[in-house]
């Protein structure tokens, strides 16, 4: 069981959360003019790093807030979490 640090509630069990994929993926500015290929790239293609990655999670059984958190994709270690629209803390690596 992962322990995920919610920036509002503190560390809680994984079962209270839902995953929201990579954080900081900006919505394209000219979404109406994108080609299918560009749109597919925005929707499906993620950086998929080996190591630390900033992710979105939602505390769905708790405060129901979305937040961002650093997670190591190799060993599932969690780094600092932070609220949306706040300064991103440095990668723990």
């Amino acid at each position, binding site marked *: 069981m992962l322990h995920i640090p919610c920036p509002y509630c503190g560390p*809680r069990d994984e079962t209270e959360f839902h995953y929201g994929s990579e954080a900081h993926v900006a919505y394209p500015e000219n979404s109406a003019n994108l080609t299918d290929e560009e749109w597919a790239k925005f929707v499906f293609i993620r950086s998929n790093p080996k190591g630390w990655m900033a992710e979105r999670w939602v505390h769905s059984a*708790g*405060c129901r807030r979305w937040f961002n958190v650093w997670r190591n994709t190799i060993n599932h270690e969690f780094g600092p979490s932070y609220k949306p629209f706040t300064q991103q803390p440095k990668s723990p690596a």
Partner: protein
Amino acid sequence: MTVNLEFAKSPLGGAKHGGLDKAVLIQEVPFTPGFDLRVDPDSSGFAAVNQALGLNLNPKVGTVVRNNAACIVGDELPAAGGISALCLGPDWWYLTGTADIQELLKPVQEAHHISLVDVSSQRTKIEVYGPNAKDVLEHYWEQDLRDEHFPIDACSQGVLAKAPLIMWHCCENCYLLFPRASFAKHLWTALTDASVEYL
């Protein structure tokens, strides 16, 4: 607000298990009013809400502020005009109590940007009381219930036996649960099952 209880049915019909003189008492307190209040703590509405309710709402998740007795252990009704505010999110409170909360906040709603929704029928209330109350809850609850982590007047949302609910440590050996109405029967079965070894 007046509620016509003539045809109302509570999810558990006011069920009771164990007793006040036993290791644990589990009872439903039916028809508890509940309101979801959403207000930005940095807005002008926040101060107005505080003034209208006569409370000092704390925007820290998991805190409870109140002006009344909250539980009905021993069938003693809380005093009239009581309000308890459970902070569930940074801009989200669950208000419950005997006061007419809707009436109190009506002028604030008209003047400020806040939201108050009557969610009374969304949840029911279960009291778990007694020297072994904590042990019963620990059968299922994944969070730390020890007093240093979950003191009196702390509240938390989570999952108890897979039923999402709000838990509130309201006084010594007394925990109030606010489960969804549709989960109440399942939760009741789980709680009474867990309490068997203490009764």
